[in-house]
């Protein structure tokens, strides 16, 4: 086949013009390497964000309803008093809801004799542990009887436990909140600080009833955590929750919600928005570097053709058609791009591994960027090779044979 012969001639051309071949390969290699590294970094960051969200206690089937209008963690109104235990009961009656955990929250001092620390105190129901899936390090979690009898018991997170008791055994000891003493009945397993500096272990839990009667002296809730039966039911559950709460809170059709949702998707959106902007910038950079690679190929091929005018003339004298010359140079450009692409992928892989290994940036290596890189490579070879190839083919054989 004629085309295979052209391919063979292209291979020979690349071998004979090593210098140019290496330069062209480098151009593509750097473009592809940066492309793959950037995609690996982007994926790595995304995975880290996802695990961070998982650490925050959100399974894909759960979401929180926080009292007060606003968005995500930012409230527009203070001291919204409309969310109550009745809401909780109505929400639990929804068919797609598995668990409902009402919560009160207050930041205050916890005191153990001379040691004290400031932490978040949550008044919760025993279902909290199920909803969060948080294991115990030691002791027991709050029970239904603790709730019913408004017992003064407390479960400590790892951070306040360490601050209050150092290396001593906290279970069974008494700690003071305001003027009441609470017996420590359990210790939560340590989760560790997240990337963003949020410490999930900096908390203490008491029964919701105790919190209402002895701590906040209020009956309204800070938030309700809702766990749906299945993650696919989250959107419809959220809508149902919204209807119930709006009705319970007597909101007119025109009024805004006096509560807000925090969903895993919502958090992810919030966290990744800035990262997406970063991604977009990085993609732009890698596109530019690919483009530069392509232009490098084109320019070097154009120079190479000027150097090889005689060769083209000789080939034409002995029967090469214009199409033969076009294909030969096109093959050279595509082969160089693929070779550069292959090396670029290798370099990109090495760089991704290095970034991860030395903890510079999180990277995650997937197949897609490699397929993408190869598609880009052949495309770049074709697009940027066509002009030089046509130029070579349309040289006059008479003039090119005479050129020195």
């Amino acid at each position: 086949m004629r085309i295979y012969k052209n391919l063979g001639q292209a291979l020979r051309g690349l071998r004979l013009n090593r210098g140019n071949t290496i330069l062209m390969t480098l151009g593509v290699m750097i473009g592809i390497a940066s492309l793959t590294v950037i995609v690996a970094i982007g994926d790595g960051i995304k995975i880290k964000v996802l695990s961070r969200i998982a650490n925050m206690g959100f399974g894909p089937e759960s979401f929180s309803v926080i009292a007060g209008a606003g968005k995500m963690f930012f409230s527009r109104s203070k001291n919204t008093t409309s969310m109550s235990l009745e809401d909780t009961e109505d929400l639990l009656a929804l068919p797609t809801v598995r668990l409902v955990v009402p919560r009160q929250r207050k930041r205050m001092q916890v005191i153990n004799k001379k040691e004290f620390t400031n932490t978040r105190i949550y008044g919760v129901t025993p279902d909290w542990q199920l909803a969060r899936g948080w294991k115990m390090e030691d002791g027991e979690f709050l029970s239904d009887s603790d709730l019913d009898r408004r017992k003064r018991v407390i479960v400590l997170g790892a951070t306040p436990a360490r601050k209050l008791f150092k290396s001593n055994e906290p279970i069974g000891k008494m700690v003071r909140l305001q003027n009441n003493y609470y017996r420590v009945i359990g210790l939560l397993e340590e989760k560790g600080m997240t990337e963003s500096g949020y410490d999930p272990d900096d908390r203490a839990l008491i029964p919701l009833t105790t919190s209402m009667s002895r701590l906040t002296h209020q009956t309204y809730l800070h938030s309700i955590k809702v766990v749906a039966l299945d993650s696919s039911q989250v959107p419809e559950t959220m809508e149902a929750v919204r209807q119930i709460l709006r009705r319970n809170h007597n909101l007119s059709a025109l009024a805004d919600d006096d509560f807000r949702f925090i969903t895993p998707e919502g958090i992810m959106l919030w966290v990744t928005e800035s990262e997406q902007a970063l991604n977009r910038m990085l993609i732009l950079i890698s596109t530019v570097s690919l483009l530069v690679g392509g232009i490098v190929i084109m320019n070097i091929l154009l120079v190479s053709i000027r150097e090889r005018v005689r060769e083209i003339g000789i080939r034409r004298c002995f029967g090469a058609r214009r199409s033969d010359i076009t294909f030969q140079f096109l093959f050279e450009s595509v082969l160089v791009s693929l070779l550069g692409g292959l090396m670029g992928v290798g370099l990109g892989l090495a760089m991704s591994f290095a970034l991860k290994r030395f903890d510079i940036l999180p990277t995650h290596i997937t197949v897609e960027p490699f397929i993408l890189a190869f598609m880009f490579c052949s495309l770049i070879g074709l697009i940027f090779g066509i002009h030089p190839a046509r130029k070579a083919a349309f040289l006059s054989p008479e003039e090119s044979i005479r050129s020195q």
Partner: protein
Amino acid sequence: MNLIEMNSICKSYRNIGFETKVLKDVTLHIKEGDYVSIIGPSGAGKSTLMAIMGCLAQPTSGEYILDYEEVGKLNDRKLSRVRNEKIGFVFQAFHLLPGVTALENVILPFVYAKNPPSNIKERARELLAKVGLEHRLHHTPGQLSGGEQQRVTIARSLVNDPRIILADEPTGNLDSKNGVETMKTFDNLIKEGKTIVLITHDSEVAKHAGRIISILDGQIAADSNVNYEEQARSL
């Protein structure tokens, strides 16, 4: 019948608005098996005439019939095929592909041949042996002497068994010994029935041919048979 038939060929080049007439109304017929020298001073239009004869350039006007085919009417595909099958080029500057072995250089016309024989390497080897280069098959042009390079060129021109050999100053870059060798090779080719058109400015070299055409200022100044008996036929 005439293998090469040129009727009123004109060729002009346009260069920044200037029109240079290189060939002016050249009419030339060459029979199969002829050994023709084209002689003339540099700038007379010899090389342009050869380019047109070798289908490397198209005439500005006039008619060129090569082996019953009017070249002016052929497209690039067919022209390439004519160059590939009917013509073998031998150049003053050899024009071998640099960095490519003698054997591969000789094979080049096969790369672009429509139906290359299956034993191309064998054929190329035979031809290189015929010009006395069987020990230089895998040498690149840079490793060969001028005379050896010219012999590779001749082997390459013969590989597709063309009917016409077009040689542009084949002895121009050679010493006298190699020049004589080259001319001997051409003498042998004529005996094998090839048609040879030899372009030169050396009248001694030209005398090897049976017919000498001299070109002056783009026109045929003289066309004479070296054979005295037929000299009267000159135009």
